[in-house]
């Protein structure tokens, strides 16, 4: 993976998420989409680094939530997904959408729980609805963002496909 391109991609996604997308009522979480993308299409060690880095980026724009919960939850889930992907390949778009939906849901709940337990951040009543909607939009948009993301960081998307045909 080309790390400089990775950093630029994450930076662009973070700025878009905090800037342009922040004004939209219903929006996908680009960072969750990228988290799943790197967990699925990169090597395990790269997936771990990228998961924590994306979590850190989410923390930077996560204000007023404190820093830390995103990094931990994204790191945990990204690592877990990378290991799951070793056993069960997530290649088709519907499966990728499902992975984004589940990871988005669990990551958001875990983030809010960590913030509640360690920082006493209030857990809002409508958190589940908001999280469900964001995860849904992310899962609908996410699989279509994988090819441009792969092109940006120089990852060959069909390398796993070729390996499975042997």
């Amino acid at each position, binding site marked *: 993976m080309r790390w400089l391109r990775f950093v630029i991609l994450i930076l662009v996604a973070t700025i878009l998420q905090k800037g*342009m997308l922040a004004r939209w009522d219903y929006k996908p979480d680009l960072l969750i989409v990228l988290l799943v993308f790197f967990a699925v299409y990169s090597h395990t060690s790269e997936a771990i680094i990228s998961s924590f880095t994306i979590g850190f980026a989410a923390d930077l724009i996560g204000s007023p939530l*404190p820093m*830390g919960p995103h990094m931990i939850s994204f790191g945990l889930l990204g690592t877990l997904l990378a290991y799951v992907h070793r056993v069960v390949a997530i290649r088709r778009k519907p499966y990728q959408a499902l992975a984004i939906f589940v990871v988005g849901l669990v990551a958001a709940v875990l983030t809010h729980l960590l913030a509640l337990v360690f920082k006493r951040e*209030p857990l809002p009543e409508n958190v589940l609805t908001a999280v469900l909607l964001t995860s849904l939009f992310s899962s609908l948009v996410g699989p279509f963002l994988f090819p441009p993301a792969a092109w940006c960081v120089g990852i060959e998307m069909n390398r796993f496909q070729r390996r499975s045909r042997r």
Partner: protein
Amino acid sequence: MLFTWLMLAGCILLFAPQSLTGKLQLAFVDIFRWPLSLGGNVALTARTQQSYDGDLGGGEARLRNYIVNLEQTLDQQRKKFQGLYGKYNTYVWEGADWVSAGVITRAVDGPRNELTIDYRKKKGLAEGQYVLGGESVVGTISDVFPQMRTARVKLFTDATSKIPVLLAGVPNILKGGDGPFARVEQVKTKVEVGEEVFALRKAGFLDAPIIVGRVSRCERNPREASVWDVTVVPACDIQHLEDVAVIIMNPKAG
């Protein structure tokens, strides 16, 4: 091993004081203020294509808020004049300073509502100062980063916000809700929908009542039927605010 180190880094961030990590978040916004606000402008342009739904536009709402504030101030001044007859009467905003600030980022749709603003005056901003947008109170300063001339505004709709207000002539506490609204709980009398809610005078921070929002709903408290829960929506369109003003009541010389 890699996982353990990164997890440790995450835990350090989590347990670090929020005053410190908050500065990191503000620094990020400050460094990328241009692309962040540019993104906002693009989104605004896209949203202007939507059909007009009959609500007051930004300009009209601003004027209406201005008139309501003047009326309330006039009313307060009249009472003060009557009460302190014979004494010297000072204009409420005399000596106050206003700091104009641009909105860099906003989070207004979730339970945690805040703005990050870019202020142009180097000194004078402090936590707790009232912030006006569209001639109405939108929140208070929650964090200041003077080196970067950036500050955070906790909106009155934020779930952790509590500000004293005047509702139907009675002092109350306005608490943030779980969305773009706030609540006044356990009001003893029923309040009409559309009634204006004013921020109460607070020594050193606000010397005149300023409109905060309007009552959008008034329903009986589910636990105690004799009292009412009032929902208040902002008096201006916070989602599309481009500039705000911070009130500094007692600016230091120099």
